[in-house]
């Protein structure tokens, strides 16, 4: 995947480039907004990672400009931690996701993967991995044809995992997307709900579908 990184802090940029390249992606890096806009307009990239604060043209204006021109490229915003309130503005301005610095590299990687996939898809009404099925309209889930009774939050959790099937999702992504929590809770909400979900969809069905990826997060896939 060819990714355009627009980040003026060269140390952070170097860190990101190194990480993404070691994952087999090719990264082009630019250090100011105006140059960044020009590169993004060339339209050769599959994803854009943009810092909110940039010399020349700030990240939000840059993305707004791209969206005004009708460009659909997936965008991940980066921001400093004092910019917590910028999240809403960033997403409304056309960003697909938002990551607060400093971040673990696994977090960035998972989010880049998530936004690039999301763009390719329409909105399916049924999700399926192996013999696990979800009907989003009828709000039902089943495995191997056997109905599974899920609490509302378990349903949302499974839906999110299924939508991202085959890709790592981080704990933070789950907190944000399933529970709408934009801070780190002190109790293990994610672990608790995941273990309940596992006991419902994995126990007694032979092959496990939800896997823990150490140091990164979780993944739903059929081995």
């Amino acid at each position, binding site marked *: 995947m060819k990714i355009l990184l627009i980040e003026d802090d060269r140390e952070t940029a170097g860190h990101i480039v190194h990480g993404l390249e070691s994952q087999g992606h090719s990264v082009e890096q630019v250090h100011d907004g105006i140059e960044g806009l020009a590169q993004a307009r060339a339209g050769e990239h599959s994803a854009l990672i943009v810092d909110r604060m940039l010399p020349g043209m700030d990240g939000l204006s840059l993305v707004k400009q791209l969206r005004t021109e009708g460009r659909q490229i997936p965008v991940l915003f980066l921001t400093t931690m004092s910019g917590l309130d910028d999240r809403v503005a960033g997403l409304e301005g056309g960003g697909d996701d938002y990551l607060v610095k400093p971040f673990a590299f696994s977090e960035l990687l998972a989010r880049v993967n998530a936004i690039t996939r999301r763009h390719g898809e329409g909105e399916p009404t049924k999700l399926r991995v192996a013999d696990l099925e979800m009907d989003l309209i009828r709000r039902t889930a089943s495995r191997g044809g056997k109905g599974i009774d899920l609490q509302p939050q378990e349903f949302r959790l499974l839906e999110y995992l299924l939508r991202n099937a085959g890709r790592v999702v981080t704990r933070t992504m789950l907190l944000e997307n399933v*529970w709408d*929590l934009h*801070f780190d809770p002190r109790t293990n*909400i994610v672990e*608790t709900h995941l273990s309940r979900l596992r006991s419902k969809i994995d126990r007694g069905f032979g092959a496990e579908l939800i896997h823990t990826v150490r140091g990164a997060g979780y993944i739903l896939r059929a081995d």
Partner: protein
Amino acid sequence: MRIRFLYTEAFRLSAIYAGIFALSVLALGSVVFVMTDRAFRDQVVLFSRADIAAMRNGFDAEGVKEAREVLQQIMGKPGESDFFLLQKDGKKIAGNLPPMPAQSGIVPLPGSGPGHDILGVGDFLEPGLYVYAGSDLQRVHAAEREILQALAWLFALAMLLAIGGGTLVSRSFLQRSDAMARACRAIMDGDLKARIPVRGAYDELDRLAGTINEMLDRIAALMENLRQVTNDIAHDLRTPVSHLRQRLERAREDSHEAEDYAEALSAAIEKTDEILQLFASLLRIAQIEGGARRADFSPIALGPLLTHVRDMFGAVAEASGHHLELKLQAEAAIRGDRALIIQLLTNLTENAILHTPEGTNISLLLSRTDERALITVSDDGPGVPREEHDKLFQRLYRREASRSRPGYGLGLSLVAAIAELHGADISLRDDSAPGLGVTLSFPVTLPTAQGTG
């Protein structure tokens, strides 16, 4: 310094008023002067015509001799015309004026003799027989000079009043603006408690002073907040950072295998994340206390929100042997920042889960009065001694009992900051029932239960 008042707005205004006043006095004076002058002249002409009419009567009755007789009679009387002439074909018959070119109608004789300015009327009694009667205008001029003088005095007095009044007004204005400047200077010099004196008259300046004082109070509160945050960061980052340093140092000494290093590095990254988390929390509190998020307020239905919180933590509470229960006694909607209210409820619920022993019942209760929506998070655990209640919401306060657990004592100060942002009061249950009960009382802005969650 002395003539500084010349540059004040009050003085400028009074100067403008004085100018307008002076112009109107001048205009009024001119009108009075012109009208008086005309009246005097009309009177002179009137007298002259009357005298000439008397002479004509004499002439018509008994001829030139009688006209001359009448002339001399009138000339002897005071209060009538002063100057007369009766001439026949350019030769003077009687009167006190030298012969002159005969001309009928109103005839001024300027410069006729030293000190005289005569105005009068000439007429022909019969062809060739010319008669003239007139008065000296010197008396008129004298009266007019008197009027002018009076006007000049009036003008001077008006100017004096305007300038004097303006000076007084601007002096008092200056004294008050000086007081403002002094207060501002005192604040600039470091006395942040200085405020602008308010006279209590509730005039424009008082209102201005009041507004500035309110602004200063707000700035002072923000400064205090900033100072507090800076102190907190200075004091409380030292501990985890020095722990981090100790660990890294020990890892360098004790590690022999690559595995040891990897483990030490993981531990160091974890510790760094904790420190960053602390930073983020402090910044977040400061941000919320700064009030910047108020712009994002929208209606929130509390029932669905509390249900969401219960669903989130029900399983967590159960996993740690607690029981979490939700009681919705009423529905209420408030205006607020949904993400922040969720964080507030998360903090209170997590506190109850983390700081009470197994078997504790925790309850989330929503009730309301006419004007307030009440959310109570309570438990029947060991509770917090009454004397510690006040300290609970202070930034970085940690009870002795909880010092061994992770965290930096920011949870409840964040709760306090979010509550304050929403105009909510926090109270702690103060009865003999076991456990801790925290009640948040939000102002209800929507009269009915409907709203978007």
